[in-house]
């Protein structure tokens, strides 16, 4: 089947949830109200590192209106972790036991009849601390004389301290690569901590009901992982914990793991047998929730005279905060983002995840890619310039070809990176603008223009709990369709995409497809909205489920019409016998016939899908061995910037993206994803930074934390590079589109700044003051790098 014959898939269908959200009808967690519901609040540590000597809750408990107070004494003291494997066992209590290791760590919870009372109760809890020395810089924390936050990982033998995890991997002969290199560059790059900036703060309602079941509504990225973590830490069987769907106002990686407040709300509700709602203030989000990963990247690359990359040695250091969080995952993924897009015959990689007394880290859209690509792409341009090549030719020379095999055994299959690079360069007139900027550098004008490129390859679904998706497609009597999926739409539009796929298979219009989603009790398991695999994994499960239902429907129709299934054609909810169009049966009639004659079969289809079906386990976080993903997306992005050399202000004029996301199941959603990521990348490179002093966030509001808004949106343009097809008969391949582009924006803007003013950006964000300082250094004969 040709993509052009498709009616729903591949079409720019508006979001199903759009009208409901725009008119205020969508129910978010904060909107949930249950009879007798209490307000829950969390007491948090004011100190970044301290021993808890005593917690006295007696006064708080006596305050009229207080219904429950909990501390770790009320808990089972079961640890949890984003990673919980034999190598990396869980290391964090959901409510602090005897120690706090970061400011904002949960110490106690209260439930009261209103917010005032709950706040007052918090102020009546008296905690005695013994303060301990703390460390906030990961490179400081690695030193042997640093305060110990956790003992070193037992399998890491380096003479360092506070190592929460390490990854080491290599392929090829790196020594030989460097000896044979015409040019070797070594650079070091730094990134800041950026918050996710979800509009909906963390929020949870927990209700322990009369049947001893815990019902939880929580702003998350997938319900099954929440159920697993809550059940385990609370000591409940999965059947006693139900997570229900609510609308989610964005997550971007920040709402995956179990959070202390979800546990505390549950514990409070179990204690007082009333529903408890906890909603973070924005300040609480900034000061206590998890933010992104501030990776340090040291990178050494050797090339031949003609620009061919021979080898690369990379060392990353991740400040994982007070617990392991996703820190060890970020250093693993960063390796993948280094090796995937370009042919690098030999590589040596080591990454450290280091404990500090900072907030715990969460994954964040791109999960390491923006930092790794910023470093690699910046260095590519340095090398290209030293070789007298332009950035486009350098990349085209080294980018992977379709069918290339990666060192982990993955194939990049129909990889479109070279096409992306060539097309984006052509559309933006890159080479001419690049040369023009170089000439302009020495003209008298104070406003300089520059152009730069950044590229990425990204995984599209991998193996992490719960690893797979199942979807159920059910016909109703009126031939409308109900879809049961565990997938949670967090704003990316997955319910719309699933509906398009089901509509395509069944020939039922979109408005007659009703998605029932994300309820651990009534919907089948789903992979979750966090590893860029939903359209691929859940989508294929939905496709199989729909085609299963369709097969049943066609069988009934064949019975009724006295024909063969192969002769049948379905059109507008009617099934015709191909060669005699007056022999027909409506879907409704066929369903009725199935119920009447096939022992009541009301026609339900089931489909399941798992990526990398032959792989038993996920790749190793310590050696990077093992397959990562089945489909590598890739993009090339070009940024055009203007730099005011008198004030240091950088403006992004335009971001053009050539993307290979396989094929766009919904082109407007793809463009929306790109725009959102351009905006995030813009914030990353130019304005956003969580400012932390002694472990405390000092800009805990959107007045002080500078996140770009709609008015700041850069002009964007898109180029489709389509490398896959949607075929009705088989499962389809499609690629990630929701995470990778942040990298392209960061890297392309950094390179464009260099093109404009000759200043190499080695840290983010770039403030106007940094530009002025670097220009001054440049003038006075310094290197002019913009770094820490």
């Amino acid at each position, binding site marked *: 089947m040709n993509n052009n014959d498709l009616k729903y898939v591949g079409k720019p269908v508006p979001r199903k949830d759009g009208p409901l959200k725009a008119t205020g009808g969508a129910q978010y967690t904060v909107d949930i109200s249950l009879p007798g519901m209490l307000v829950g609040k969390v007491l948090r540590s004011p100190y970044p590192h301290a021993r808890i000597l005593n917690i006295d809750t007696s006064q708080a408990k006596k305050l009229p209106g207080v219904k429950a107070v909990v501390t770790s004494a009320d808990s089972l003291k079961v640890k949890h972790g984003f990673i919980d494997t034999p190598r990396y066992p869980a290391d964090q209590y959901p409510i602090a036991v005897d120690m706090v290791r970061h400011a904002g760590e949960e110490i106690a919870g209260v439930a009261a009849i209103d*917010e*005032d009372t709950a*706040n007052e109760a918090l102020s009546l809890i008296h905690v005695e601390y013994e303060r301990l020395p703390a460390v906030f810089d990961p490179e400081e924390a690695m030193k042997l004389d640093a305060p110990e936050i956790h003992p070193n990982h037992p399998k890491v033998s380096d003479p360092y301290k506070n190592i929460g995890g390490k990854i080491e991997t290599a392929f090829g002969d790196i020594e030989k690569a460097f000896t044979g290199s015409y040019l070797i560059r070594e650079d070091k790059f730094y990134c800041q901590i950026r918050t996710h900036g979800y509009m909906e703060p963390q929020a949870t309602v927990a209700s322990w009901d009369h049947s001893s079941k815990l019902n939880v509504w929580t702003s998350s990225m997938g319900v099954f992982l929440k159920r697993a973590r809550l059940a385990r830490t609370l000591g409940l069987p999965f059947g006693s914990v139900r997570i229900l769907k609510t609308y989610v106002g964005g997550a971007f990686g920040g709402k995956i793991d179990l959070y202390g407040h979800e546990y505390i709300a549950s514990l409070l509700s179990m204690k007082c047998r009333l529903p408890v709602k906890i909603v973070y203030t924005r300040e609480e989000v900034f000061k206590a929730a998890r933010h992104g990963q501030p990776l340090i990247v040291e990178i050494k690359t050797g090339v031949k005279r003609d620009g061919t990359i021979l080898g690369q040695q990379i060392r990353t250091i991740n400040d994982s905060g007070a617990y392991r969080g996703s820190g060890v995952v970020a250093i693993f993924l960063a390796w993948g983002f280094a090796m995937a897009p370009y042919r690098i015959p030999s590589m040596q990689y080591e990454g450290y995840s280091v404990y500090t007394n900072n907030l715990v880290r969460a994954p964040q859209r791109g999960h390491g890619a923006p930092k790794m690509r910023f470093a690699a792409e910046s260095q590519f341009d340095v090398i290209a310039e030293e070789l007298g090549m332009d950035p486009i030719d350098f990349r085209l020379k080294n980018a992977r070809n379709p069918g290339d095999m990666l060192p982990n055994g993955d194939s990049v299959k129909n990889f479109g990176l070279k096409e992306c690079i060539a097309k984006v360069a052509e559309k933006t007139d890159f080479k001419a603008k690049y040369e023009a900027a170089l000439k302009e550098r020495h003209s008298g004008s104070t406003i300089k223009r520059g152009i730069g490129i950044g590229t990425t390859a990204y995984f599209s679904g991998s193996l992490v709990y719960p690893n797979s998706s199942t979807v159920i497609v059910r016909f109703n009597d009126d031939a409308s369709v109900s879809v049961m999926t565990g997938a949670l739409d967090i704003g990316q539009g997955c319910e719309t995409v699933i509906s398009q796929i089901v509509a395509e298979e069944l020939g039922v219009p979109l408005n007659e497809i009703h998605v029932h989603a994300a309820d651990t009790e009534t919907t089948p398991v789903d992979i979750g909205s966090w590893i860029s695999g939903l359209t691929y994994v859940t989508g294929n499960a939905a496709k199989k489920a729909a085609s299963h239902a369709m097969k049943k429907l066609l069988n009934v129709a064949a019975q009724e019409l006295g024909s063969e299934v192969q002769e049948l054609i379905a059109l507008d909810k009617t099934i015709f016998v191909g060669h005699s169009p007056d022999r027909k049966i409506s879907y409704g009639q066929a369903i009725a016939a199935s119920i009447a004659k096939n022992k009541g079969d009301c026609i339900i289809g089931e489909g399941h899908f798992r990526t990398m079906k032959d792989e038993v386990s996920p790749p190793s976080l310590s050696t990077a061995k093992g397959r990562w993903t089945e489909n590598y997306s890739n993009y090339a992005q070009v940024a055009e910037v203007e730099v005011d050399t*008198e*004030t*240091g*202000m950088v403006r992004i004029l335009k971001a053009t993206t050539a993307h290979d996301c396989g094929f766009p199941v919904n082109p407007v959603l793809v463009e929306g994803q790109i725009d959102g990521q351009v905006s995030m990348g813009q914030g990353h490179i*130019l*304005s956003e930074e969580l*400012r932390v002093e002694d472990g405390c966030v*000092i*800009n805990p509001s959107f*007045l*002080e934390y*500078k*996140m*770009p*808004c709609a*008015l*700041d949106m850069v002009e964007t343009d898109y180029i489709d590079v389509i490398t896959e097809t949607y075929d009705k008969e088989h499962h389809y391949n499609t690629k990630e589109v929701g995470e990778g582009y942040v990298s392209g924006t960061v890297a392309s803007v950094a390179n464009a700044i260099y093109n404009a003013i000759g200043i190499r950006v080695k840290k983010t964000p770039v*403030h*106007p*003051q940094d530009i*002025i300082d670097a220009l001054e250094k440049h003038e006075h004969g310094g290197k002019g790098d913009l770094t820490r």
Partner: protein
Amino acid sequence: MINDFHYLKPASLKEALAMYAEHDDCKVICGGQSLLIVMRQGMVAPEYLLDIKHVKELSYIKFDEKDGLRIGATTTHREIEKSDIIAKKYPVLVAMEEKLASIQTRNWGTIGGNLAHADPAGDPGPVLIALNAEIKFGNSGGEKLVPLDEFFVDYFETQMEQGDLVLEVHVPAPEPKFGCAYQKFNLLDSDMGIVAAAASVTLNADGTCKDVRIVLGNAGPIPLRVTKAEDLLKGKKLDDALFAEAGTIASEECMPVADIHASEEHRRHVLGVLTKRMLKKAFEQAQTAA
């Protein structure tokens, strides 16, 4: 959290002034765009809130060729931005408003509230002072009219006393051969300025500088006139070299304070650049003006 308070809603200006005189621990709320932030932070916790948003007598934009422009205190930013007569006679005000916060904030926030709040980073202050504006305020006992230049006293402090309401802003009719320009320096489009500069230039018939005003935003405790820089230019035939020199003087004369968004040094530097640029822009406007 915002404290509990009593809510007063006067129907007329007279009633508003009377209520304000009667209640001691009372704060005026108009659009709430500044007040609610500080109330949420717990920095302001009054017993009474006097809501003057609905006092229609204070919501107007009037223009007269001789008298100039009069804007009532409860006129919103958005109304100023969308006013045809202001666009025609004082385009710098419209340009300033278009970059003041977001549309939502401009729909609520008022000119009176902005000036009364006296944030040295506010946008209208510098521009209106460059336009030689006056401000009228008063209480149940009487009114006062002062040059806006003298209205601001310190960070978040004005000449007004408890019981005073801002009533009106008056901007004189533009002189011939007059130009005025304003620019703020910020990382995000809808944000308060890290620093800002307004400049106005009036030229004599022979092209020399008759009058000049340079007013800097967020460069000290109040919207800051840099008179040494102004004095350099008065009576002279203006050119780029003079603008650059005025910029250098302004950057020395101002007194910005560092915070997490920029150092004092960088603020001074940018203020100098903006001063130079706004002077040039105002001068070019004045040259082509009737």
